[in-house]
């Protein structure tokens, strides 16, 4: 029988939840909906000690205010599902958390044919559904419906959101301590993501962690020392650096649908020990350039995991040069050296630059729809193998350290029909992040393939100029995009110059 229960905070504020006898169960908590389903009440099954309660208070009041009640606070409401009150009921501590936004619940779930014997319609979109290869394999009976899977461009957007959210927490001195696809909801249809289960936050030196994380995301040093007592100085517990490992794993999994450390190498014939070594002291990147001992053994891989399990067919370099550099830092140099792992900010920057390198696949049936330009003269979609046909302009961005002098920035912008130039391209002082004003998110120029050639139409740039012909390009006018063309986007301080390279196929 369902009953509505009223609970109180220490200050006397009341909340209600519906107890139907079978709450949703997380790892640590039992979760009940409010009668109007606008929030949930999540009770910790274990009694919370003084320290835990202090931590919760800090999360709910101090840290929440520091993030949400500052400039740009509204922006974060979409990226975090942050608890906002604490209640006590029958000796149990509970937190009040907003319900997840509606895009984070499956509309369709499984493919139609599977609907007869299983359904996940209305269930939360925990990230695992989208990080595992079989749920997108037609050979797997219970694969997700095409309408749920999004495309590769959307996964990049999802990763940007996650990196940005983690960056914000770290900037506030907080570590999540249990980042995993369980605790991050994603929606590949809209490219949104939200971090949930924020109650375990770790504040270095103040509130120690009480979890070591979720398998697949536990940092090697934490796994390797989990047998030591918590008080042992050599015991490694979750912190900002282990969050960085988890973040790197998550990004790798959302872009390549496989785990960066789960390969064919056997460390022990006992599966539990093998797992602990493979994820701990002996952890090795499956795509390590010289030590190839952990490459997946394709004869032992399930057919439903292909082609993603095949690192030769879809190597991590398909994510482009900026992300490759960070994957190297995370899984080769920094795997056992936490101090040099890429920060959330570095991931955000690299992902944003990668957006500019993306090209729509010309194959209308390509499942990924987007791919990163491979810097070759014969660009080709790595996912479906379709070669790009036609003229492909690539813009190289330059900045001016002093008047009259321009230097390359290792930043390129791919051109396709409908591609735009934004303020963060025209001026290096503008960054595409949560601080942009609404006006700044509008395009300032756009590209079109018109009468057999590429043109760029100026919409808002007040000092755009064709440098070679020394000709102003006023607002509303266009300029032809040809090989070697140099265009100054803005004469203002920080204004960029672009130089065109044209690939012809």
């Amino acid at each position: 029988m369902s009953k509505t229960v009223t609970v109180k905070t220490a200050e006397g504020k009341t909340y209600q939840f519906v107890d139907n006898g079978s709450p949703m169960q997380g790892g640590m908590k039992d979760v009940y909906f409010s009668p109007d389903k606008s929030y949930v009440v999540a009770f910790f099954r274990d009694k919370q000690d003084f320290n835990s309660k202090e931590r919760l208070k800090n999360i709910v009041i101090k840290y929440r205010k520091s993030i949400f009640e500052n400039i740009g606070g509204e922006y974060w409401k979409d990226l975090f599902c942050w608890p906002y009150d604490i209640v006590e009921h029958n000796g149990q501590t509970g937190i009040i958390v907003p319900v997840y936004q509606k895009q984070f619940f499956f509309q369709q779930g499984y493919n139609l044919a599977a609907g007869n014997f299983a359904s996940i319609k209305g269930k939360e979109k925990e990230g695992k559904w989208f990080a595992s290869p079989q749920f997108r394999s037609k050979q797997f009976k219970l694969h997700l419906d095409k309408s749920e899977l999004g495309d590769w461009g959307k996964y990049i957007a999802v990763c940007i959101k996650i990196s940005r959210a983690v960056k914000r927490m770290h900037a506030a001195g907080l570590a999540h301590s249990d980042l995993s696809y369980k605790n991050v909801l994603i929606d590949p249809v809209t490219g949104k993501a939200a971090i949930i289960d924020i109650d375990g936050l770790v504040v270095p030196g103040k509130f120690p962690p009480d979890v070591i994380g979720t398998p697949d995301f536990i940092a090697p040093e934490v796994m390797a020392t989990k047998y030591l007592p918590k008080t042992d100085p050599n015991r490694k517990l979750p912190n900002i650096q282990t969050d960085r490992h988890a973040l790197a794993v998550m990004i790798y999994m959302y872009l390549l649908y496989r785990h960066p450390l789960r390969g064919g190498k056997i460390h022990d014939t006992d599966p539990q020990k093998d797992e602990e070594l493979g994820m701990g002291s002996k952890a090795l990147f499956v795509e390590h350039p010289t030590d190839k001992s952990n490459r997946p053994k394709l004869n032992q891989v399930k057919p439903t995991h292909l082609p993603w399990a095949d690192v030769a067919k879809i190597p991590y370099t398909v994510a482009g040069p900026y992300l490759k550099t960070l994957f190297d830092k995370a899984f080769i140099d920094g795997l056992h050296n936490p101090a040099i792992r890429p920060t959330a900010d570095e991931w955000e920057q690299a992902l944003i630059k990668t957006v500019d390198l993306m090209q729509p696949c010309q194959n209308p049936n390509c499942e990924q729809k987007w791919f990163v330009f491979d810097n070759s003269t014969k660009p080709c979609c790595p996912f479906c193998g379709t070669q790009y046909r036609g003229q492909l302009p690539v813009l190289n961005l330059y900045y001016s350290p002093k008047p009259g002098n321009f230097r390359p920035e290792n930043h390129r912008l791919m051109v396709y029909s409908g591609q735009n130039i934004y303020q963060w391209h025209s001026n290096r002082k503008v960054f595409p992040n949560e601080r942009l004003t609404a006006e700044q998110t509008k395009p300032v120029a756009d590209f079109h393939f018109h009468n057999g050639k590429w043109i760029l139409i100026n919409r808002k740039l007040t000092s755009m100029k064709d440098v070679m012909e020394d000709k102003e390009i006023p607002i509303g006018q266009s300029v032809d995009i040809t090989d070697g063309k140099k265009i100054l986007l803005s004469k203002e301080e920080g204004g960029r110059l672009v130089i065109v390279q044209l690939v012809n196929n």
Partner: protein
Amino acid sequence: MRRLPVYLLLDTSGSMRGERIEAVKNGLQVLVSKLRQDPFALESVAISIITFDREVKQVMPLTELETLQLPEIVTPESGPTNMGKALLMLCEKLDTEIIKSSQTQKGDWRPLLFLMTDGKPSDLAQFREAVPKVKSKNLAAIVACAAGAEAQDSYLKELTGNVVHLDTADSSTLMSFFKWVSASIGTGNKTVGTTEDIALPPPPQEVHLVI
């Protein structure tokens, strides 16, 4: 990709006839549909069902969750509860169905065993022969469930420290047990605490854990 083998040993002796066996069948359906909502379980769980009454049958060989179809489960009118034989069959199946890890291949995870009965073993000699064998198989967990007033915990305790006693064996109690089983199978993917044990989730309210 390692499988997580789950063996369900179910009592189908005469006393289970009627409401109880219907509840078990229902419970199995709920178990499977709940697990099919868990992406972690779908990636790894494989289930086998062995029933025992006078006869012992593996009504479903170890099958991956994605493809399995629940078998028909029937109970005879009366007869003994050959739990011992069932455990011996389990040992055989563990030897043949589980992929062992080798120097070149990753094997399965250590299997889980859930055994449910509303009585006690009739074949006590075989039961006593089977217990040490099962224990030597290095299972990840053995959970035994004694359902209803006539079920006896003492024998089950010889097999495992994890004995769940259900005071009644009505459909709602059995259902909560099966839900609990599905939650237990799913724990592998959940947050791991800083303390050492990976605990089973708390049993539903009507269940008593006998330690």
